[in-house]
């Protein structure tokens, strides 16, 4: 090995590094490193002590090997030894190794801390700096614990060298950032703030970073820094470029310090002290003035430094937002940059202008640059700058220039980068809506948007255009015409088909007069797109077709033909198939009147916040929202969207609590709330449609057609149609369309049974209506009070009820009702009295039919009135002997009815007793020899005759069975009561 010169060259290290670099493969490199490591190990292990130079060299090699990605597990001790060396280079390498390699939980940390402490307390500034740098580089919690108390003292001590102060300030900043809880400024605060007055600019620059960070945490403690910062700034700004010597950078005095000062000032509101404020404004003006001066150097560093200060100053001006004069000047200054050669400057100018545009003072000034910005959008080569230009255009848009800006953005959209297209689309959609004076322009714009960038038009955008078209009568005809024309293009985007389908389905009639857009032409046009569309669009188109049948009866046969063809009615997609089947049936069965009701025009949507805006906010993150809010604040009620914002939470709340009645075609069954619907198909659709007309219109009206709701819950609807009809589901007529009383509910029988043993309670309840009952009976007469409660907030109209007696009941039962008011207000209750007279014993129960319109939809409910023969029981008390005498008298087989049945609810004596009493008979104690058994006696009072009735109930607790035996003088009575009673246990 050649003799190593003892200079600082470290030839061995250089040789090793070049060896590594010359390695052909990874394997060779690993071999070389292994060899070197073995060498170093043997050197460190060797008996004779190494001198500082060799130690340094080997530690350097280890460091290099570590940086190549190999693990180093020795040499730490040698590095720590180097720390105590008096040679700068050796100490430096030692610190370097330690800051790179030593982890905080090492045992060596105590030794290291000791060495650092020694260096910190030494008077040698370079050693102090090395120690401080090491602390900052490691920056661990342990370091902070050990030295957080020491460093502030060094920082503010009078005799500390300037260079050490700088290091101390930055080191403290680092420690503060790792563990703010350990760095307590307290007593040092004012002295740290006064570092701003330090003679040495370097110290000020370092200190200001620390102060900025600290003052962000507790602005109040550092409030005094504002005036100091302003005076410092004014001294720098007003100084001639040569005054600051070392701190003048290409003729700009202390640019970094200026920027940091301006940034510190941005942490605080404008100074309240007039003098300070005046001085600051003066400074800012000087900075703006200087920007106008011709450059003192052609070097790019000069202009960079100048512009850096300028942009910070503008940021401060925008932050204060109180000096109109300055704001306008800043805006003009930025305007100059808009056409600057430097791409970065253009970007920064556009970005700053975006914030300027939201200030009321400078908004107008920003608007003057519209041409330049539009030009930037078109000609700029850098995509990020174009993005900023688009942002700025969006920010500067108001009613006066909306048309121009939207047109420009639309034309740009055709060539825009794919990455920003979706955002652009949203912006165009929002601007078009927000500033639309005339809605035909709006419709044109959005349709253009779909045409140009259909793929990037999100659902929200086309939902919104439909909402607006439906809500504005004046634009409907125009929209229909425009959509029709747009659809004639040979290839149009699916979103266009969706809008077209919806709008023509709703308002196709408005353009049907023109022979060029006759109903059949419209239909054929839509249907020509059908097969190219996805399933949701097809579903929408099917709905449009059924609407067509209503709008244009002449197209009925054509459309039915289409619905009937196998590709629809046997479609593999269950949603399409269901729609085809349902619509086909609906169109062939329902009369035109019914169709007209069912397929009525959609009611207007409630005004609310544009979902597009919400989406844009989501896209841009919280920052954009605040801009948006400021925007709203500034524009106030002038905006179309302005008034709509307030009611959003209320609307959504009411939506959440109002269950949608429309989920069930008939409104007969309790429907699940919309919110709980499976979000499978239409989670997006919910957003727009769910809260729409749900509260305002009921049932079939909107459910039958179009809206996303039946997309959301196909299972419910299909059940409603297919399962609820009586008899065959094949021939099920659409029950909603019938004016006839509906057949009784399937659960009516159960409801009836509920009332066999009690007289009061709730007979029926669904989403809309609650029916309560109160009844009393004496002898063969009875009176029943029916209470109809409206559970919704909307009134029921044409409310009518009818009590009818099917079969031969009229001869057995005499019922009289009073008519009720045809109108029930929301939340109100009306009462109806039914008088009942029992002529003779009967079996069937009378029917109660209720009809009313809720939100235009007819509701038709039929129930069984809980009038049963046992209601006319008169209890009879008798003793055991008498009972069994009578029991024997009624011994003919037809007089007795017997049933053995299983207990439904378990055998509980008290419950059974209560039920038997509720039946109306007398419960006879101590009659039956078996105390477990129940015996009852009673007389049924009818107008024509009295029927004596004896009852015996024998429970078998073991088998959970009952045997019920009834004997009465009339066979039908025995049987009926036996039947009724057996259901009760």
């Amino acid at each position, binding site marked *: 090995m050649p003799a190593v010169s003892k200079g600082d060259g470290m030839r061995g290290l250089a040789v090793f590094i070049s060896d590594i670099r010359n390695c052909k493969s990874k394997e060779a490199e690993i071999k*070389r490193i*292994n060899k070197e490591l073995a060498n170093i*190990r043997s050197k460190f*292990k060797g008996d004779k002590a190494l001198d500082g130079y060799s130690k340094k060299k080997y530690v350097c090699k280890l460091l290099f090997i570590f940086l190549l990605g190999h693990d180093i597990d020795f040499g730490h001790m040698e590095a720590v030894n180097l720390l105590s060396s008096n040679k700068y280079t050796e100490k430096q390498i030692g610190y370097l190794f330690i800051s790179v390699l030593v982890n905080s939980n090492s045992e060596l940390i105590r030794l290291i801390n000791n060495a650092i402490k020694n260096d910190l307390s030494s008077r040698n500034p370079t050693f102090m700096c090395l120690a401080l740098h090491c602390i900052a580089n490691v920056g661990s919690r342990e370091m902070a614990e050990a030295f957080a108390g020491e460093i502030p003292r060094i920082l503010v001590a009078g005799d500390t060298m300037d260079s050490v102060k700088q290091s101390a300030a930055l080191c403290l900043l680092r420690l503060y950032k790792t563990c703010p809880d350990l760095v307590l400024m307290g007593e040092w605060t004012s002295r740290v703030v006064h570092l701003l007055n330090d003679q040495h600019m370097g110290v000020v620059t370092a200190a200001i970073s620390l102060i900025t960070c600290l003052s962000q945490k507790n602005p109040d403690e550092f409030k005094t820094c504002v005036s100091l910062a302003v005076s410092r700034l004014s001294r720098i700004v007003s100084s001639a470029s040569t005054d600051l010597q070392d701190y003048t950078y290409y003729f700009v005095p202390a640019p970094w310090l200026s920027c940091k000062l301006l940034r510190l000032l941005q942490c605080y509101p404008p100074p309240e002290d007039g003098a300070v404020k005046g001085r600051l404004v003066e400074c800012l003006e000087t900075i703006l003035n200087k920007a106008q001066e011709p450059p003192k150097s052609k070097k790019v560093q000069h202009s960079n430094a100048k512009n850096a200060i300028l942009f910070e100053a503008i940021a401060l001006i925008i932050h204060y937002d109180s000096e109109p004069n300055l704001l306008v000047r800043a805006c003009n200054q930025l305007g100059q940059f808009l056409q600057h050669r430097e791409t970065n400057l253009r970007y920064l100018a556009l970005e700053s202008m975006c914030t300027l545009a939201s200030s009321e003072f400078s908004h107008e000034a920003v608007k003057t640059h519209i041409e330049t910005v539009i030009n930037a959008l078109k000609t700029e080569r850098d995509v990020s700058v174009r993005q900023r230009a688009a942002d700025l255009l969006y920010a500067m848009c108001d009613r006066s220039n909306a048309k121009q800006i939207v047109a420009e953005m639309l034309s740009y959209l055709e060539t825009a980068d794919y990455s920003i297209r979706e955002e652009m689309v949203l912006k165009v959609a929002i601007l078009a809506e927000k500033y639309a004076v005339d809605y035909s322009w709006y419709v044109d714009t959005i349709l253009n948007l779909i045409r140009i960038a259909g793929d990037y038009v999100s659902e929200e955008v086309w939902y919104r255009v439909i909402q607006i078209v439906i809500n504005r009568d004046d634009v409907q005809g125009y929209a229909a015409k425009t959509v029709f024309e747009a659809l004639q293009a040979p290839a149009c985007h699916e979103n266009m088909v969706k809008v077209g389908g919806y709008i023509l389905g709703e308002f196709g009639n408005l353009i049907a007069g023109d022979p060029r857009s006759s109903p059949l032409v419209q239909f054929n046009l839509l249907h020509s797109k059908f097969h190219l569309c996805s399933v949701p669009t097809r579903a929408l188109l099917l709905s449009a077709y059924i609407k067509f049948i209503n709008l244009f009866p002449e197209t009925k046969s054509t459309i039915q033909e289409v619905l009937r063809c196998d590709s629809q009615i046997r479609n593999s997609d269950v949603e399409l198939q269901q729609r085809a089947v349902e619509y086909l049936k609906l169109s062939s069965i329902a009369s035109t009147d019914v169709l007209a009701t069912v397929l009525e025009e959609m009611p207007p949507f409630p005004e609310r916040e544009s979902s597009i805006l919400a989406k844009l906010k989501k896209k841009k993150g919280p920052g954009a929202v605040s801009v948006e809010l400021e925007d709203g604040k500034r524009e106030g009620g002038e905006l179309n969207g302005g008034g709509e914002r307030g009611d959003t939470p209320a609307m959504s709340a009411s939506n959440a609590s109002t269950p949608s009645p429309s989920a069930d075609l008939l409104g007969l069954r309790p429907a699940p709330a919309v919110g709980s619907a499976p979000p499978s198909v239409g989670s997006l659709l919910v957003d727009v449609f769910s809260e729409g007309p749900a509260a305002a219109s009921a049932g079939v009206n909107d459910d039958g057609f179009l809206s996303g709701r039946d997309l959301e819950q196909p299972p419910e609807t299909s059940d409603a149609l297919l399962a609820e009809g009586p008899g065959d589901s094949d021939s099920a007529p659409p029950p909603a369309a019938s004016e006839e009383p509906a057949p009784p509910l399937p659960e009516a029988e159960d409801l009836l049974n509920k009332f066999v043993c009690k007289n009061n309670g709730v007979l029926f309840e669904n989403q809309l209506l609650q029916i309560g009952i109160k009844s009393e009976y004496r002898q063969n007469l009875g009176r029943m009070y029916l209470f109809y409660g409206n559970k919704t907030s909307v009134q029921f109209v044409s409310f009518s009820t009818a009590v009818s007696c099917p079969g031969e009941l009229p001869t057995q039962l005499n019922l009289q009702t009073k008519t009720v008011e045809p109108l029930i207000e929301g939340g109100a209750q009306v009462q109806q009295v039914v008088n009942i007279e029992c002529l003779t014993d009967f079996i069937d129960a009378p029917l109660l039919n209720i009809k009313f319109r809720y939100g235009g939809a007819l509701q038709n409910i039929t129930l069984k009135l809980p009038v049963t023969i046992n209601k006319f029981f008169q209890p009879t008390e008798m003793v055991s002997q008498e009972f069994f005498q009578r029991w024997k008298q009624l011994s003919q087989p037809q007089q007795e009815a017997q049933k053995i049945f299983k207990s439904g609810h378990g055998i509980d004596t008290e419950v059974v007793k209560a039920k038997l009493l509720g039946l109306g008979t007398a419960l006879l104690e101590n009659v039956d020899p078996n105390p477990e058994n129940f015996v009852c006696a009673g007389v049924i009072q009818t107008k024509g005759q009295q029927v004596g009735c004896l009852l015996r109930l024998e429970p078998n607790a073991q088998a959970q069975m009952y045997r019920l035996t009834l004997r009465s003088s009339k066979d039908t009575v025995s049987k009926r009561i036996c039947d009724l009673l057996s259901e009760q246990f």
Partner: protein
Amino acid sequence: MIGGLFIYNHKGEVLISRVYRDDIGRNAVDAFRVNVIHARQQVRSPVNNIARTSFFHVKRSNIWLAAVTKQNVNAAMVFEFLYKMCDVMTAYFGKISEENIKNNFVLIYELLDEILDFGYPQNSETGALKTFITQQGIKSQHHTKEEQSQITSQVTGQIGWRREGIKYRRNELFLDVLESVNLLMSPQGQVLSAHVSGRVVMKSYLSGMPECKFGMNDKIIIDKQGKGGTTTTDEAGKSSGKQAIAIDDCTFHQCVRLSKFDTERSISFIPPDGEYELMRYRTTKDIILPFRVIPLVREVGRTKLEVKVVIKSNFKPSLLAQKIEVRIPTPLNTSGVQVICMKGKAKYKASENAIVWKIKRMAGMKESQISAEIELLPTNDKKKWARPPISMNFEVPFAPSGLKVRYLKVFEPKLNYSDHDVIKWVRYIGRSGIYETRC
């Protein structure tokens, strides 16, 4: 199907790039380089999936061969092809090195065109390829039209691996049984796993279209013959059973008639001309372990380690093992090593973190020993040394599996030489594969 094939040097520079299918773009070349060759972590898996594209690679010294595909191919097929590709290249220009590839890249492209067609492997038989892909260039007067059509009919014919009309003055035949024995043994001498993978390589210089029949002491074959043969006594059957070996699985060169092997267990074939691998096999039972390694490791305090290793040769004293090398791993914090050995040379190789002990020759039934003192540097790492196994390399002149060639008969009915006229040479070489003993 293979979509493309790339060859890189150790730096990841592309030497050969051949794309067979459109679904492989140009960026695939870079993807492999970035994600495998230059990967931060060493990539161990020979199959990598990058952006829905599968890369299969093998490495030969510093050269990477990568086959690329977007389809779901049979990985074994791809690797078999890559190995074949290596064999073909070795047969054409010797060692696969950057230098050789650069010098022969026209030839390699030519070969790639021939052995892979639209991603489907074709004839990769070196002998056949050499008839129409030559290194010297085709001289037109040598290849008349008939000759060219003969090549076509031969390549596409039933026996694609041999052309007709070969004539030798001396009919010679070389048979090499090459085995590599793999072992993992516990410190106490218990065999944890052992297997032998062997190859029968044949070099044939025979005239005409000879029919060959190869016989060895495979247990099944012998049992079958024992049963079939009426004359063998019980004793003879036993003795042959003793010598017979159980072959776990074997694969044959395409020239072997598999149907005959399936029915009669006889290996008969028309051999290709020149060198080729007749069969490959694997055995796991009754393996003769040529060497036994007995390690003794003692840790003396934190800074010292004493190692003693004894090796014993376990074969006939008349045989000589060669190229013996024992590799004793040393801990990562080794700072100095002293070695004493009776035989051979031993040296601490710091770059490999191992003591390497080399013995040139060693006869059977002998033993030799090495002892070493290893000094350690105390580290602050608490990790214990993992004690990697001691590995060994050697070469012995017998087959550790016990395989014996019983006969190789040559029949050439059309030409006038018989089995006796053919000069046959048989050689056995047993090499170490991964031959390790834990310590």
